C-alpha cells in the first residue's frame, strides 16, 4: 500500500508537471489581458509537432549515442518546438485577439474557439504537405496519431527506486518543470520585460503611462506561455510515445483547470495547481474504491475538483481575492 502510494505520487507529480507547464501559459495571458486563451492547448500540440518536424529535418536520427541525444538532439527538438509554438501564438495574438482588445469579453473568447478549431484542422489537413502541391514523400500524415521519436536514454528507460518504478520521461517532465520554473522566476523578477509584464497585469493603464509598451508585453506573455507549452509538448510525446492533432483539447482543459486551481493570474499558483491536479488524478484512480475508481473516471474527478474549487475557494489555492474587473 505504501509502495503503491509512492508510485502514484511519482506518476501524479510527473503528470502534474505536464499540466503545470501548459497552465503557466493560461495564467500569464489571463493575468495581463483577462482572456482565456482557449487555443493554448493547440499551441501545446503545435509545439509537439514542431519538435517532431525538427527531428525529421535532422534526418530522423535513431542511432545517436545517449550523450549526443540528450545534449544535442533533445535541446534542438525543444527549440524547434518552441519556434513553432511561439510563432503560432504570436500570430494568433496579432490576427485574432489584438483587433478585439476593446470588444466585449465574449468576442475574443469566441474567436479563441475559432482559432482552436482552425489550428487543429490545419495540422490534421496540412501536416506533411505543401499546400496546393501535394504530400512530402516520407512524411507521416497527421490524420491519425503520429509516433513520436524515441530519444535514447529517455524513451522506455526506467529507474527502480525501492519498490517504485520511475519512467525516465517522467523524470524529464519534472526536470523540465524545475528548469522552466527557475527561468520563469528569473524572467519575471529580474528582466525588464518580465517586470513590465507584472506591472501591466497589475494596472495596464498606469503601466502605459510609465512608458511600458503594453502591446509588446502582451506579445511577450503569449510567447512565454507558448515556449513552456512547447516543452510540455515534447514531454507529452516522450511520455505517451505519440502525438496527434487532438491532444491539445483535453490537455488544455486540464491545464486550465490547474491554473484555476492554483489561482488564475498567479504564476506560482499555476505550478502548484498543476502538481495538485496531477496528484489528485493519480490518487483518485488508486484510492477511490469500486467502479468509480477505474481509470475511465479520472477526467471526471479532475473536473469535479475544478467545480469544487470554484464553490469553496474561487480565488484558487494561492490566489488573492478575485476582483471582478468587468
Amino acid at each position, binding site marked *: 500500500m505504501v509502495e503503491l502510494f509512492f508510485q502514484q505520487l511519482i506518476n501524479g507529480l510527473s503528470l502534474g508537471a505536464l499540466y503545470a507547464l501548459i497552465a503557466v501559459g493560461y495564467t500569464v495571458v489571463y493575468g495581463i489581458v483577462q482572456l482565456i486563451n482557449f487555443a493554448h492547448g493547440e499551441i501545446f500540440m503545435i509545439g509537439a509537432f514542431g519538435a517532431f518536424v525538427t527531428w525529421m529535418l535532422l534526418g530522423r536520427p535513431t542511432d545517436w549515442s545517449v550523450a549526443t541525444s540528450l545534449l544535442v538532439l533533445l535541446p534542438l527538438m525543444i527549440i524547434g518546438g518552441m519556434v513553432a509554438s511561439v510563432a503560432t501564438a504570436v500570430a494568433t495574438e496579432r490576427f485574432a485577439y489584438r483587433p478585439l482588445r476593446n470588444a466585449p469579453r*465574449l468576442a475574443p473568447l*469566441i*474567436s479563441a*474557439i475559432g482559432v482552436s478549431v482552425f489550428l487543429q*484542422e490545419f495540422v490534421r*489537413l496540412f501536416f506533411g504537405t505543401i499546400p496546393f502541391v501535394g504530400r512530402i514523400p516520407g512524411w507521416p500524415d497527421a490524420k491519425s496519431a503520429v509516433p513520436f521519436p524515441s530519444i535514447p536514454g529517455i524513451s522506455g528507460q526506467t529507474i527502480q527506486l525501492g519498490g517504485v518504478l520511475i519512467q525516465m520521461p517522467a523524470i524529464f517532465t519534472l526536470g523540465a518543470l524545475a528548469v522552466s520554473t527557475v527561468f520563469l522566476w528569473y524572467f519575471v523578477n529580474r528582466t525588464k520585460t518580465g517586470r513590465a509584464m507584472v506591472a501591466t497585469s497589475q494596472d495596464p493603464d498606469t503601466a502605459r503611462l510609465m512608458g511600458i509598451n503594453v502591446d509588446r508585453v502582451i506579445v511577450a506573455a503569449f510567447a512565454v506561455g507558448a515556449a513552456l507549452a512547447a516543452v510540455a509538448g515534447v514531454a507529452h510525446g516522450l511520455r505517451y510515445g505519440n502525438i496527434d492533432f487532438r491532444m491539445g483539447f483535453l490537455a488544455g482543459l486540464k491545464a486550465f483547470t490547474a491554473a484555476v486551481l492554483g489561482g488564475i493570474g498567479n504564476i506560482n499558483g499555476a505550478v502548484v495547481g498543476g502538481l495538485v491536479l496531477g496528484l489528485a488524478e493519480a490518487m483518485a484512480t488508486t484510492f477511490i474504491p469500486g*467502479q468509480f475508481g477505474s481509470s*475511465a473516471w479520472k477526467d471526471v474527478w479532475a473536473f469535479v475538483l475544478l*467545480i469544487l474549487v470554484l464553490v469553496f475557494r474561487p480565488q484558487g489555492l494561492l490566489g488573492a481575492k478575485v476582483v471582478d474587473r468587468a
Partner: protein
Amino acid sequence: MRTVIPDELKIQLRYPARAVGLVGAVAMIISVFLPWSYGHGALDDVGFSGSPSPLQLVFLTLPVLVVVLLGVPLVGKAKLGRWAKTVAWNTTAKTTAIASLGAVVVAMAAIAIELGGLVNIEVGGWVAVAGAVLSAVATIFLPDSPEPTLSRVKTARWVQILAIVLVLAVVLFSAAYALGMSDAGAFLVFAAILTGLVLALRQFGVFGWLGNASANNNRVLVVSAFAVAFAFPFTQNGSNANMSIASQVLIFAATALGLNIVVGLVGLLDLGYIAFLGAGAFTAAILSESAFSTVNFHPPFIVTVLISGTVASILGLIIGAPTLRVSGDYLAIVTLAFGEIFRITMNNLDGTDGPNVTNGSDGIPGIPDLNFFGFDFAQPHVIAGIEIGRFANYYWLMLVVIALIIVVFTNMNHSRIGRGWVAIREDELAAEAMGVNTFTLKLLAFAGGAFLAGVAGSVKAHYDVSVTPDQYVFLESAFLLAAVVLGGMGTVGGVLIGATILKLLPEKLRFFSDYRLLLFGLLMILMMRFRPEGIVADERRQLEFHDEDEELADEIEEELIAHHGHLNPERKGFEL
C-alpha cells in the same frame, strides 16, 4: 462601396459609363440563351442554346436588375413617383453588376472543375464573363448615390403585408429549389446569385423599408412565416431526402434558440450546451419503449418530454449554482468541463465502469417512433394528394416546439425578467447596484435554457432512432454557439438563419466536407473580427460592438425614431 475614382471624373463619365454598363448587362442577358459549356454534365446542364436551364433563368434576374437600375434614371425617375428619389440607383447598379460578375466567376470555375479545364466553357460562358466584366467595370465609374431613405416612405398597410407575404413566398421557393439541387457547383452559383440579390436589395434601401414594414406588421410576419414553414413539406412531393435535412435543421435551430437565451440575452457563455441536449435525449431514450432501455418505466411521450426537460434543467442548476457566482469566464470553462463530464459519464455507465444505465459507447438503439394518440410518426400520410412521410411528421413537430420556444423567448425578452437579463449582459455590477437579483436571474436563464435543450433532445432521440455518447461532443456545442454568433446573438430570426446556414451548407457541399471544420474555425475568427453582431443584428448589440462608430449610432437612432417615434426599441412594458 466608395472607390478611389475622383467624383468630378465620375460625373463627367456618367453617360458613357451607363451605356457601357447597359451593353454589358444585355450581353449577359443574351448569354443566358447561348450554351455556357460544351458538355452537359456541369451545373445541372447549361449546355443548350435557346433554352436556358433553371439556374440560368435565376441568374437572369441579376442582369435584368442591372438594366432596370441603369435604364430607369435615363428614362426619368420622376414618372415613378416620389419614392424613386429615396433609393440608391447607381450604387445598387454597381453592387448588382459586381455580384453578377461574382456569380459568373463561380459558375465558370464550377464548369472548369466539373468538366476538367477552362476549354469546356462555350461561347455563352465567355459572353457572360465579358458582359459581367464590362458592366462591373463601367458601373464603378458611376457617381455614388446618397444613402437610401426608402425606409421613411409611408406606404399603405396592404402594400406592406403584400410585400412580406411575397418575400416569404420567395424564401420558400428558393429554399425548395436550393434543397432540390444535386450539383454542388450549381448550389454555389445559386447561393452567389442569392447573396448578390440580397446585397443589392439592401443597397437599394428595400431592407430598411421591409424592416419597418415587418415591425409594423409583426403578427402578420410571424403568422405567415409559420404558414410558409408549415407548407414546406408540400413542395417536396413526398421526397424524404430534403425533409430529413429540413427536420435536422429544425432540431438544430431549436437547440440554438435555447442557447440564444443563455448567450444572447444574458451573455453567459455556455460551452457545454450540447450536454443538456444529450441529457434530454438519453432520458427520453431510457424512458422509451426501446428494447435496450435499462429501466422498466415507459410513460407516454408527453410525460417523457417534461421529465427530459426537468432532468436537463436540474443538471443546469447543479452546474450553474456554484459557477454563476464567479466571473463569467469561469462559466465558459466549467460548462466545457461539464460537457466532458457528461460525455465520459455516459460512456462509463455501461455496467463495467459503473452501473448500467446507458449501455456505454453503444448507447441506446432501436428507439421507436413517436405515437401521439394513435398518430404514428413512422407512417406516411397522404394530405392533398401529396405524401407526407416520417421526416415531415417530425418536421412539423419541431415546428411546434420552435414556435413555443419563440413565444417564450419574445415574451421573456419584453418582460421584467428579460430586461434584467439584458442589464446583466450589459453590465453586471451596475445591474446589481440597481437592484436586479443577478444570481437568481442568471440561474433561471441557465436552467431555462437547459430545459429547452432537454425538450429538443427528447424529440431528437426519437428522430435519430438511437442515442450514443459520441453524438454529444464539444464540437457540437461549438457549432451551436457558431449558429448563435453567426446569425446574431439575441435575435430569433438571426439564429434561425445561422442554424440553417450551418446545417444546410455541409449537406450541399459534400465534396468540401474535409475542409468543413477548417472553414468553420476561420469563419468564427473572421466573424468576430468584422461583423461580431452577426448577420441579423440586434440594434442594441450592434451599438455595443461598434461603440466608437458615431455615424452608425446616429443612423440607428434615426431609424429607431423613424419607426417607433421614440428611442426605446421595445414597445411593450412600462417605461422607467
